[in-house]
C-alpha cells in the first residue's frame, strides 16, 4: 500500500508523552486520508461534546496518500478539530510545503491531545522528535517566528514551519495557522485551537520519499497531468494574475459581494482591485506551492505611500474582496497591508474582512460609535480604520474583543438588530461569492459541513463554468441565477469535492484535471483497486460522517439557512432581483441526500454507506 507511511504521531501536550499510532487499512480505503480520516479518528476516539478550546478537543494534522507524491497540487494537508468559531466540525487545508515534509519525515499525520501548561513547539527531524520550550517565541508574529525557527533549526537545510501568531495565542476565534509565512489554514479558527494548547509551532525536516504502488504508471501519469494542469487556461490565468484574476469576471456575473453584501455591481472597484491591477502595480514575482504547475501565489511589494510594504506574500482574491469591495475600499496597496498584518497575526482574511465589514455597517447605523472604537473612524472605505481594527482584534483590545469572537457572536452582543446584517452560516463568515448570482453556491453554503464555505465542494468551479466534469454527471452550462437542478448539482459537487480534502489535493489544480485523473492518482499511489465510482462513494460516505459529527455537536435543520442579507435582492448588476429559492433547494436536497426532518442523515442511508456505528450513535 503506497502513499501512506502508516504512522501517525500522537502527542499528549498535557503529559508530554509521545507515541505512534495508525488507522486500520479499511479506514484508509473508506475515508482515504486528510480530513476524511481525521473525522473518523475524531468520531472513534474523542469527546464530541468537549468545548473547542478545552484540552479534550484534539488538533489533528493529517496528510493524504498523495500528499508529497509530486503529482500536481499535492502539497496540501488538512488540519481538523472542533471549531472554536462555529462549535461544530472544523477543518481547513493548506498548500505550501509542510504536509510533504511531514511525510518525508515519516508521518501521515499528528494528533495533538491535551494542552501544555507553558508554550511549546514540536521539532521533528525524521526519527528525532522533541517538544521544546517556546517561551521566547510566544508573542512573535508568524513572519518573525518562521525566520527565527528556520535559522535555529536550519544549519544545513531549512526546515518547514507551521506556526500561530498572536491572534492564535489570544484565542481569536477566527485565528489561522501559518505555513512558512505565505500559506494558511484560514477557516474555522484552527489557530485558536492550536493556541489553546499553547502550541506555538511545528518544525519539520524529513529525508524520505513517498513510495507509490505502481511506479511506472505513476511516472507516466505524472508527466501527463503536470502538462495538462500547466497548460489549462484557468491555470494560465491564475499563473499570470493570481486567484484575483476572477475579480473582473466575478463582478460581471454578480459573484463579488460589495459593501457588506448590499450592492450588486461596481466595476470601478473591480478595476482597481482585480488581478490585472495587482499584477501591473505590485507583483514582484510568482510563487508556487511544492509540486504545483499552476503557481497562483503572488509575491508583492509596495514601494511608497502610507501602505509601504517589503516584498512578501500577496493577497488572494478572497482577501482582495474582503478588504476591498466588501468594505468599499478601492486602494489595493491598503489591501496588501491588511493582508500582511493578517498574515503576521495569523488571522483568516475572509472572516476578518467580513467581521470588519459588519462593524462598518454597525458604525454606519450608529450601533457602535467612535467612543466604542477608541476613536477609530469606521466609515466605509476607510482601510486605515480597518487596519487599526485588525490590530485590536488580534490583541482582543476594546471593540476588538467583541469582534474577535466572530460576526455571529458579535451581532448577538451588539443586539439592536445587528443579526440582520451578520453574513454567516453556522457561525462561519461567508466567503466572497454571492449566492444571489449563483444559487447553487447558496445551497452549498447552507449544507456545507463547516458553515458558509466555498471550498469543500467544487460548486465554485462547476456552477460558474470555470471547469466541467461531464464524467461525474454534471451539466455543461448551469444558469447561475436559477435554483433549478441545483440540489442534484450540489450533492454531486460535495461528493466529488469532499475527497479533495481527503487526498489531499488543491481545488484549483483539480479544476485543471478530470475526475478520472484524481481517481487514477489514488490508484497508482496506493495500489487500491480504485475508480471514479469509489472516489464518489468515499465522498458521500465522508460527507455523511462529517454531517453526523456536526449533528452530534449540535447542528440541525434550522442551521441549514442563508442569512437575511443574502436573501435580500440587490438592485443592480447581473444578479439584480435574484435570490436563491431556499425552500425548493433544501426540500430537493434533503430528499436526494437522505436527510430527515432534523437534518440528520437517515439511518438506512448511513447503513448503506457502511456507517453502522454512526447510525447507532445518531439514531440509537
Amino acid at each position, binding site marked *: 500500500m503506497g502513499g501512506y507511511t502508516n504512522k501517525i504521531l500522537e502527542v499528549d501536550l498535557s503529559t508530554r508523552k509521545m507515541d505512534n499510532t495508525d488507522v486500520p487499512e479499511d479506514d484508509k480505503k473508506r475515508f482515504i486520508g486528510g480530513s476524511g480520516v481525521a473525522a473518523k479518528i475524531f468520531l472513534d476516539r474523542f469527546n464530541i461534546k468537549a468545548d473547542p478550546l478545552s484540552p479534550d478537543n484534539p488538533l489533528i494534522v493529517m496528510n493524504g496518500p498523495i500528499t508529497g507524491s509530486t503529482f500536481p497540487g499535492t502539497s496540501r494537508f488538512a488540519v481538523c478539530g472542533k471549531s472554536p468559531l462555529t462549535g461544530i466540525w472544523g477543518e481547513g487545508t493548506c498548500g505550501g510545503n509542510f504536509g510533504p515534509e511531514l511525510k518525508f519525515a515519516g508521518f501521515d499525520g499528528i494528533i495533538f491531545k491535551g494542552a501544555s501548561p507553558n508554550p511549546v513547539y514540536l521539532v521533528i527531524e525524521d526519527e528525532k522528535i522533541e517538544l521544546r520550550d517556546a517561551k521566547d517565541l510566544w508573542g512573535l508574529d508568524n513572519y518573525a517566528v518562521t525566520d527565527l525557527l528556520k535559522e535555529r533549526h536550519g544549519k544545513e537545510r531549512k526546515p518547514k514551519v507551521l506556526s500561530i501568531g498572536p491572534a492564535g495565542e489570544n484565542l481569536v476565534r477566527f485565528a489561522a495557522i501559518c505555513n512558512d509565512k505565505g500559506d494558511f489554514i484560514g477557516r474555522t479558527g484552527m489557530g485558536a485551537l492550536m493556541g489553546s494548547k499553547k502550541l506555538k509551532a511545528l518544525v519539520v525536516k524529513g529525508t524520505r520519499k513517498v513510495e507509490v504502488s505502481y511506479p511506472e504508471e505513476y511516472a507516466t501519469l505524472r508527466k501527463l497531468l503536470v502538462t495538462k494542469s500547466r497548460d489549462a487556461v484557468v491555470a494560465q490565468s491564475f499563473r499570470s*494574475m493570481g486567484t484575483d484574476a476572477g475579480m473582473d469576471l466575478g463582478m460581471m456575473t454578480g459573484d463579488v459581494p460589495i459593501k457588506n453584501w448590499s450592492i450588486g455591481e461596481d466595476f470601478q472597484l473591480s478595476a482597481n482591485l482585480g488581478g490585472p491591477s495587482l499584477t501591473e502595480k505590485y507583483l514582484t514575482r510568482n510563487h508556487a506551492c511544492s509540486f504545483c504547475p499552476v503557481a497562483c501565489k503572488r509575491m508583492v511589494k509596495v514601494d511608497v505611500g502610507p501602505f509601504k510594504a517589503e516584498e512578501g506574500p500577496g493577497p488572494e482574491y478572497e482577501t482582495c474582496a474582503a478588504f476591498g469591495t466588501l468594505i468599499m475600499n478601492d486602494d489595493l496597496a491598503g489591501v496588501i497591508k491588511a493582508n500582511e498584518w493578517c498574515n503576521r497575526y495569523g488571522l483568516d482574511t475572509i472572516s476578518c474582512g467580513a467581521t470588519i465589514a459588519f462593524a462598518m455597517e454597525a458604525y454606519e447605523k450608529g450601533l457602535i460609535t467612535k467612543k466604542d472604537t477608541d476613536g477609530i473612524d469606521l466609515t466605509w472605505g476607510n482601510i486605515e480604520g480597518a487596519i487599526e481594527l485588525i490590530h485590536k482584534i488580534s490583541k482582543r483590545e476594546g471593540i476588538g474583543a467583541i469582534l474577535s469572537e466572530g460576526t455571529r457572536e458579535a451581532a448577538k452582543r451588539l443586539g439592536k438588530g445587528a443579526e440582520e446584517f451578520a453574513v454567516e452560516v453556522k457561525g462561519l463568515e461567508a466567503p466572497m461569492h454571492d449566492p444571489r448570482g449563483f444559487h447553487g453556491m447558496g445551497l452549498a453554503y447552507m449544507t456545507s459541513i463547516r458553515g458558509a464555505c466555498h471550498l469543500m465542494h467544487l460548486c465554485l468551479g462547476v456552477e460558474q*463554468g470555470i471547469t466541467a466534469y461531464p464524467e461525474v454527471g454534471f451539466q455543461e452550462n448551469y444558469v447561475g441565477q436559477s435554483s433549478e437542478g441545483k440540489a442534484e448539482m450540489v450533492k454531486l459537487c460535495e461528493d466529488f469535492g469532499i475527497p479533495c480534502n481527503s487526498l489531499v489535493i488543491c481545488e484549483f489544480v483539480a479544476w485543471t484535471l478530470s475526475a478520472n485523473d484524481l481517481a487514477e492518482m489514488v490508484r497508482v499511489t496506493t495500489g487500491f483497486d480504485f475508480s471514479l465510482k469509489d472516489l464518489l462513494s468515499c465522498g458521500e460516505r465522508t460527507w455523511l460522517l462529517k454531517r453526523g459529527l456536526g449533528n452530534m455537536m449540535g447542528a440541525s435543520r434550522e442551521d441549514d439557512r442563508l442569512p437575511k442579507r443574502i436573501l435580500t435582492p440587490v438592485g443592480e448588476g447581473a444578479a439584480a432581483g435574484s435570490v436563491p429559492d431556499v425552500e425548493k433547494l433544501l426540500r430537493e436536497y434533503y430528499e436526494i441526500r437522505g436527510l430527515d426532518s432534523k437534518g440528520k442523515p437517515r439511518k438506512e442511508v448511513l447503513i448503506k454507506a457502511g456507517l453502522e456505528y454512526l447510525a447507532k450513535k445518531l439514531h440509537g
Partner: protein
Amino acid sequence: MAIAFPSVEWVEEYKKQINLSEGYKKAGATWTAGVVALVTSAKPEIGINEDVGIWLDLHQGVCREAKIVTAEEAQKAPFCITGDYARWKQVMKKELEPVKGMMQGKLKLKGDLPTIVRYVKASQELVECTTRIETKFLDE
C-alpha cells in the same frame, strides 16, 4: 432577412452594431490593445471548407474595420480566439460566456490573457451586439 454566419454581410452588420452600441462604447473606451480576430474552425458538412477569420479592428470603443480574413491572417492579430462552429453559436445565443469558454478550453485564446480579463465587460458587450443581428446559422 437573416444573415448567414459567417459571411461578409454578417461581418458588415456586426461592425454596424458594435458602433451603435453605447454599452460597448463605454466598456471599450480605453481599449488600445489592437485587433481581435475570431476564427471559426472549418466544418465542410455545413459549407465551411476552411477556417474563417473575422478581423475586428477595435480601438477606444469603436470598431474601425471589420472584415473576413484567412486563418493565417487572423493569427497575426494580437488577440486571436478560435472555436468550432457550435461554440460560436453558443456564444451568440448567450449560452457560453466567452471568457468562461476560454477557461474551459472550449475557445482557444492566443494573446495576453490579463488584458482580456480586464475587458470582460467589453467582451460581454461585443457578444450582446451579435444578438442584435438576425443570424442564420448554417447548421440549422
